């Protein structure tokens, strides 16, 4: 190797280090299961709740992507930044005890959000990838792209819509849960996950949301049992692999929102000229129609009510989930936990990858002549140079008891599910 090549390798190595410190986190789950809501909570909580003396978190996402009309009015495109607050403002306008549906604007195309986490002189980049639930469908063109994303990702956050998960007493309920939460598709997609080496750690987080009712009724264990049963194929495929960590983390994205019941989705048309209709359900006890905001619809001559075909997936009619407020208002809880667990996991991964590389480099250096070894040690620091920094970060997290590992449904899955 000439001196020129040597200088080049020094620079290449540095550039490679920058590239390698990028980790991809893929959000998975069915349509409107809560992927974007979880993601906005994670980003917000990581930015705002991580102690500044431990590490610094900078959001590098471009939030200028929105429509602004000439009159200065904002657009209707809910960016992740807007999504963070939408449940808050939505809940403020609801009366105690009233029933309504929560069906926010669905994600439209793939979005990427980048966080840079730095401690002392080193940094890692977390790239969160949010995709629409429809990409899970095997026949669509986007499915190929999704398979590639699975191969590239280190962490998988699987959003689970708890009311649909728990409403599986009947065969119809099981079918609805399967298509709504995309359980089979996720297990199939995750079979494309690639573990390149023992140090190539992967993390799967099963994240039930909208689970406040079961928390307050002290029945979160039932949710955990259901998750293990429903995601049995996914869990059993990966649980025996040392490089894969599987965790369950129930989070309360709203706090004051309680699942009430499921009712078929209907459309109410005032007359034949009405093109759009009004989303509603029929109260099974009184046969009254209630619109999506919870208001009673007064029937008129010439009106009509039909099934809403918009609420069907793969030819299965999906009922509307109705919610109530419980008076607690907007009180999210444990939303920071997935983010902190991801951070801890990636730090551990970084540490392991660096240790392996440092050991390999040491071995390589021992076989070279002393002058070359001396020059290399001066110009090219070992991969393990930042290890103490990240070790300190983990230690600080543990010392401040920031990371929740058990209770309230939090658990590691270490065994096969029967």
């Amino acid at each position, binding site marked *: 190797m000439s001196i020129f090549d040597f*200088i080049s390798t*020094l*620079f290449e190595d*540095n550039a490679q280090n*920058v590239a390698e*410190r990028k980790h991809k986190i893929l959000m998975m789950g069915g*349509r409107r299961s809560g992927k974007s809501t979880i993601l906005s909570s994670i980003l917000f909580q990581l930015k705002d709740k991580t102690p500044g003396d431990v590490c610094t978190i*900078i959001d*590098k996402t*471009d939030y*200028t*992507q*929105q*429509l*602004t*009309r*000439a009159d200065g009015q904002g*657009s*209707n*495109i*809910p960016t992740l930044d807007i999504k963070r607050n939408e449940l808050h403002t*939505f809940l403020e306008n609801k009366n105690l005890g009233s029933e*309504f*549906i929560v*069906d*926010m*604007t*669905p994600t*439209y*195309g*793939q*979005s*990427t959000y980048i966080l*840079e986490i*730095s401690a002392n002189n080193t*940094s890692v980049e977390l790239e969160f990838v949010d995709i*629409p*639930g*429809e990409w899970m*469908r095997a*026949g*669509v*063109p*986007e*499915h190929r*792209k999704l398979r590639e994303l699975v191969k590239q990702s280190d962490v998988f956050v699987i959003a689970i819509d708890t009311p649909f998960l728990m409403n599986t007493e009947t065969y119809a309920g099981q079918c609805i849960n399967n298509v709504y939460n995309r359980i089979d598709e996720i297990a199939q997609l995750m079979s494309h996950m690639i573990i390149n080496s023992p140090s190539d750690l992967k993390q799967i987080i099963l994240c039930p949301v909208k689970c406040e009712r079961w928390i307050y009724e002290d029945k979160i264990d039932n949710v955990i049992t259901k998750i293990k049963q429903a995601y049995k194929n996914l869990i059993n495929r990966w649980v025996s692999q040392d490089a894969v960590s599987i965790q369950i983390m129930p989070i309360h994205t709203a706090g004051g929102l309680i699942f009430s019941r499921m009712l078929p989705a209907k*459309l109410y*048309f005032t007359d034949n000229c009405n*093109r*759009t*209709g009004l989303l509603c359900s029929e109260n099974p006890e009184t046969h009254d129609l209630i619109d*999506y905001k919870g208001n009673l619809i007064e029937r008129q001559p010439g009106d009509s009510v*039909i099934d809403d*075909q*918009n*609420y*069907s*997936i793969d030819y299965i009619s999906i009922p509307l989930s109705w919610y109530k407020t419980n008076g607690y208002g907007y009180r999210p809880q444990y939303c920071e936990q997935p983010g902190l667990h991801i951070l801890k996991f990636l730090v551990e991964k970084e540490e392991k990858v660096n240790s392996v590389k440092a050991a390999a480099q040491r071995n390589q250096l021992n076989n070279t002549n002393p002058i070359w070894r001396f020059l290399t040690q*001066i*110009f090219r620091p070992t991969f393990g140079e930042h290890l103490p920094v990240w070790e300190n970060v983990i230690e600080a997290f543990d010392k401040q008891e920031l990371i929740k590992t058990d209770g309230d449904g939090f658990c590691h899955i270490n065994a096969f599910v029967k």
Partner: protein
Amino acid sequence: MINIFLQYSYGGFKTFLVEGQERNERISKEVLLTDFPVLPDDAYCFFQYGGAKIAYRYISDGRIALIIREIPSIHRDSDGRNIPCAVQFIGDPSDRNTLDYITTDIANDIEAFHNFFSNLFSIRDGLFIDGDSLRSWINRHATQYSCESPISQIKGISRPMYDGVILFVPLSSNFGIDRMVTNIITDELKLPIKQILSDKCFISMSSLYMLQGKSILNPTKLMPEANKIIHHNNPNVKRWYHNRRRKIACIAGIALILAIILYIITN
């Protein structure tokens, strides 16, 4: 013949082919993986990623695609917000004039296009579109645009050009300013970054909104992004450059010391 592809959230976001023949056409012909390559990757990517409001470009199979995204649909979420949809008009090179005039009209009055397009739909017993009206609207653009005073730069898109991007309206006001943002958008949307920047054929959505309905325009105000310098704002890149400078200085220092030692020894 201009083909119409629609992305609409009905039972989830799906891509449909619209025939545009009937008064009340049921939208049911979904574009699936088995149908490919009905849409080349450099056109389909506009349905897969955000970042664009309008894109008017030649695509890899030689056809021309006009894409409009973030059109408010008649569907609303539970907070009362319109759920967006998107449309692509794809024509042969012989449809260039028609597509030029359509683009001119849309870019000159986006709200008017939103109103026209979203009013084509109805959802009684399924998703329907007034395909007849949409086809008539396209055919009306075969010879001219209908807006009274087109934005001069948008009118200028009809200049002879047989490849690349003709007009791009990014949603981000950082496009063309921030390197990382520009790279991500052009990478995801498979846009030729050099051509876009050199031809200055882009204008941000917020700038375009400011110009709606104005007939006399200053071209430098029309494209302020193109006049700004793209700079590094990525800390990792900055650090990389810093480390590189440090190492070069270190090597130069050692080389100097070695040269001095060599000089002393030889003399």
